[in-house]
């Protein structure tokens, strides 16, 4: 029986190539899309789950409550880890980390080899907590010494040409400090959110950065590996007051949160509605389901529409003895088979699209068939096949064989409603996607065009390393003389992204004793404000013409507001026990992404870190070449690297840019699939009404009359879709925009455009079939009756 059914199914497919093509194409496109999204979600969910002690690995977070406002951050004091290890039960290992992201790439040298590499400073138990594989060295001892450096095998090969017998070998660090190799680790796996080429000891970092040894200053990340069997809740209860215990500040609480969760859930509820990457994982999973459902609906619609052509077969089978169960089975099997075929195509499509997809998502996903993927695959095929086949199977098998054989297909009201309901559902989803694409695009444009408060274009950055660090003033002076360089300065702040910040330590007249302000600190050189093109609102910026500027600060507008200062310029503030004077107020600028509101911040003179230069946009290549020569003069043996600030600025919106690009494709795909379905359905309707159309024409209907008649029914469905989709999309997109502190307001014309485009797309899609039916010779259609 199976073979007979297979034969019938196959011959049916071949006979009606257009239909089959639409059937399979729609489903394949949907499946390909689902496959890509699935691979992406699979990849995203795999981050940071690579560690052996994943279930015991926690990051310590700090929650501050000032003025009733709760701020949770992964940044805390550099002293936290040691305090937790000594004072709190349940912690097997702890480690403070100054992450690689804070620093420019350092130059490591061995012999005549100079390599730029990124590194971080970590506490001695780091490798006990994170199970990165050590090729050389004892994980308990490799960071015991302040002069230790642990490097990756990749870096070792670049510097020494080998990973063997290099323990104890010296490495010059930025040409001025020497560290000794104490261990070699295997290249950090791709699915680790921490990426670095080498590590130095946190103890060393403490010795060069005094602020790290203060409780009041935040920045370092702290990790803990709990003892086996330690209950997180019990641990959190114990760890909560560790800062209070050491400082007396009861506004700061500590808690541990699972490290591997943080990659996806990287927002800890700072009043923002965004929950981090998990939102996009959810969003795209939902999108995948939607697209699959749309594709399945197509399948159902086309199958049932096609039913009229197979009624005879069903009738005959019933007459000669087929039961309903057998028929249901037949149609489900057929649908599964078609899904299987579509899946083969889908894999092909996905493979073809994967390079482009990787480019958009910034990933290196490959299609490899491990057990998980195969299991999910089979599940997807089964679900799709059964879902897509269920309706036609139930629908077709229930007909009375006689009416079927006489060609009478009594369509019940329920059937009409359900078939139309399917079309409405499809177009509702498509409309929502169109609106989403437009709103996301507008918000991205808004981000691009929002004034950052500084000139983000044409700011070149290079590390103040080696001899430049010691002779910075001379270097900057020479740099300013390079033709094409308009101005230059230096700063320790990355400008985009959070730097180090502190609450406490600042006292001023009129300060509310019960509340505190947390400040972001910008350590800058002279001319920073001018180089960056920032605007001074009141007072002045740092200037060499005033001798006392080493005890001066410049506040941002938000800081003035938060401190409730009137006429701030000239006021004296005590900063860590020293008097300093406010010399100016800089207009607010965005030093974090537009997701975040601008926070209080101040600048004070502390040259070094990163050199920033504003370069003219013409002859940029010559200018950069001249800067490289100047750099080489100061730092022979250092590779010259630089970047432009706008790259870093753009990087803040990486995920949004990707979402924007991806949603465009997926929305396009959803529309194409929906249209394929509509096309098929229009063809079916036209065919079913052939006789009616013939009669109408004979009695005088024009082509326009007929076309209008056929289009009207579909348009009614589209209007219903719009009525549902527009409010829903408004609600969805308002929610999405809530995640941005700075956002566009939803313009009504977006919805109008979305609505009109859906109507036009519909008309275009069905016009082929309507016009074809309308211009057909009525004699033909009437004769065949």
């Amino acid at each position, binding site marked *: 029986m199976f073979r007979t059914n297979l034969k019938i199914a196959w011959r049916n497919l071949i006979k009606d190539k257009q239909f089959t093509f639409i059937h399979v194409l729609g489903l394949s496109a949907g499946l390909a899309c689902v496959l890509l999204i699935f691979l992406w979600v699979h990849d995203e969910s795999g981050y940071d789950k690579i560690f052996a002690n994943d279930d015991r690995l926690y990051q310590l977070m700090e929650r501050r409550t000032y003025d009733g406002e709760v701020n949770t951050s992964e940044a805390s004091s550099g002293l936290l880890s040691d305090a937790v290890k000594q004072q709190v039960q349940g912690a097997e290992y702890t480690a403070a980390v100054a992450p690689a992201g804070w620093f420019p790439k350092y130059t490591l040298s061995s012999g005549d080899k100079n390599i730029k590499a990124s590194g971080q400073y970590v506490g001695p138990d780091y490798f006990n907590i994170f199970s990165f594989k050590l090729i050389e060295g004892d994980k308990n001892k490799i960071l015991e010494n302040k002069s230790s450096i642990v490097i990756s095998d990749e870096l070792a090969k670049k510097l020494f040409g080998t990973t063997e017998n290099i323990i104890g070998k010296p490495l010059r660090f930025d040409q001025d400090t020497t560290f000794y190799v104490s261990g070699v680790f295997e290249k950090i796996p791709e699915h680790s959110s921490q990426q670095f080429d080498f590590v130095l000891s946190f103890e060393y970092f403490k010795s060069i950065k005094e602020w790290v040894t203060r409780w009041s200053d935040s920045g370092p990340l702290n990790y803990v590996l709990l003892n086996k069997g330690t209950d997180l809740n019990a641990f959190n209860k114990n760890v909560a007051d560790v800062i209070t215990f050491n400082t007396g500040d009861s506004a700061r609480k500590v808690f541990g949160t699972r490290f591997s969760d943080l990659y996806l859930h990287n927002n800890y509820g700072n009043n923002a509605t965004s929950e981090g990457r998990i939102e996009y994982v959810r969003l795209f999973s939902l999108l995948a389901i939607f697209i699959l459902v749309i594709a399945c609906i197509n399948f159902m619609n086309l199958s049932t529409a096609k039913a009229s052509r197979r009624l005879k*077969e069903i009738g005959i089978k019933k*007459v*000669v003895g087929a039961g309903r169960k057998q028929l249901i089975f037949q149609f489900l099997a057929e649908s599964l088979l078609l899904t299987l075929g579509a899946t083969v195509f889908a894999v092909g499509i996905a493979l073809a699209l994967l390079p482009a997809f990787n480019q958009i998502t910034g990933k290196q996903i490959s299609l490899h068939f491990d057990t998980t993927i195969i299991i999910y695959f089979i599940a997807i095929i089964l679900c799709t096949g059964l879902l897509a086949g269920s309706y036609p199977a139930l629908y077709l098998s229930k007909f009375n064989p006689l009416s079927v054989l006489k060609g009478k297909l009594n369509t019940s009201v329920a059937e009409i409603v359900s078939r139309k309901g399917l079309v409405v559902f499809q177009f509702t989803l498509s409309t929502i996607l169109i609106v989403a694409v437009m709103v996301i695009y507008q918000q991205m444009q808004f981000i691009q065009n929002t004034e950052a408060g500084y000139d983000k274009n044409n700011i070149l950055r290079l590390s103040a390393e080696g001899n430049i660090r010691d002779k910075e003033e001379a270097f900057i002076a020479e740099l300013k003389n390079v033709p094409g360089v308009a101005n230059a300065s230096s700063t320790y702040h990355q400008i985009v992204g959070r730097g180090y910040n502190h609450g406490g330590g600042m006292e001023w007249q009129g300060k509310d004793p019960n509340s505190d302000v947390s400040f972001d600190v910008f350590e800058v050189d002279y001319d920073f404000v001018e180089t960056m093109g920032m605007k001074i609102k009141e007072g002045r910026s740092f200037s060499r013409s005033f001798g006392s500027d080493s005890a001066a600060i410049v506040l941002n507008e938000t800081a003035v507001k938060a401190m409730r200062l009137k006429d701030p310029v000239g006021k004296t503030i005590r900063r860590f026990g020293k008097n300093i004077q406010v010399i100016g107020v800089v207009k607010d600028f965005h030093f974090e992404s537009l997701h975040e509101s601008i926070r209080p911040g101040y600048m004070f003179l502390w040259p070094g870190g990163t050199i920033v230069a504003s370069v003219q946009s013409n002859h940029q290549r010559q200018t950069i070449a001249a800067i490289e020569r100047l750099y080489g003069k100061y730092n022979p043996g250092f590779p010259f690297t630089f970047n432009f600030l706008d790259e870093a600025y753009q990087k803040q919106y990486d995920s949004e840019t990707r979402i924007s690009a991806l949603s465009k494709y997926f929305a396009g795909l959803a529309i194409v699939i929906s249209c394929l379905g509509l096309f098929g359905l229009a063809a079916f309707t036209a065919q079913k009404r052939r006789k009616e159309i013939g009669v109408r024409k004979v009695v005088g209907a024009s082509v326009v009359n007929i076309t209008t008649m056929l289009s009207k029914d579909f348009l009614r469905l589209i209007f219903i879709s719009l009525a549902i989709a527009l409010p829903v999309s408004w609600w969805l997109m308002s929610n999405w925009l809530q995640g941005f502190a700075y956002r566009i307001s939803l313009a009504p014309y977006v919805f109008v455009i979305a609505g009109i485009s859906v109507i036009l797309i519909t008309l275009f899609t069905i016009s082929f079939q309507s016009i074809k039916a309308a211009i057909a010779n009525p004699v033909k259609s009437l004769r065949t009756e």
Partner: protein
Amino acid sequence: MIRITHLEKVYRTDEVETVALNKLTIEVKEGEFVAIMGPSGCGKSTLLNILGLLDDPDSGSFMFNGIEVAKFNERKRADLRKRNIGFVFQSFNLIDELTVFENVELPLIYTGVKAAERKKRVEAVLDKMQIMHRRNHYPQQLSGGQQQRVAVARAVVNNPKLILADEPTGNLDSSNGNEVMQLLTDLNEQGTTIIMVTHSEHDARYSHRIIRMLDGQTVLENIMV
């Protein structure tokens, strides 16, 4: 073999109630060849559907081989049908996607006959109907007469006790029509009971008895000699 008593079937739409069978009583003995005649709308097709277990009556009794089947559910009816009844239609009703052989094979598949046995039986019946040489053709490649012979072959391949024929010659020219009638007569002579609905007096003369119907009732019975 068949005894129906006071059988009623009413079709209802929102506004109209049509009585298709009005307390109809008929008996057909095993081995009989009965023709049912009457004008359009007299209820002959409804009767044939009920006799063929494709439809159920509203009330009355329907004994098939001594079993009351009027209240059988769909599954039971389908089971009884595929073992006992063969159908021949005016419009042949062959599946276009299947070859002659495959069309005839279909009922055997549904009664669970093994492949080798199926092949034997299909070939035997195709031989008998003289269309063996067309076994690999598709229905649309055959003439009307040939198609109807395939349909008859399909109806008899399961050795049914009863063949129901609904205007079997309606779509055929007279010589093809006569051939099909001869086939049915031969089958009847070999013991198969045949009930045939027809408009053609000529065809009706092949039967043993003509039941004439009007408005859902029998009005006359002619015994053919």
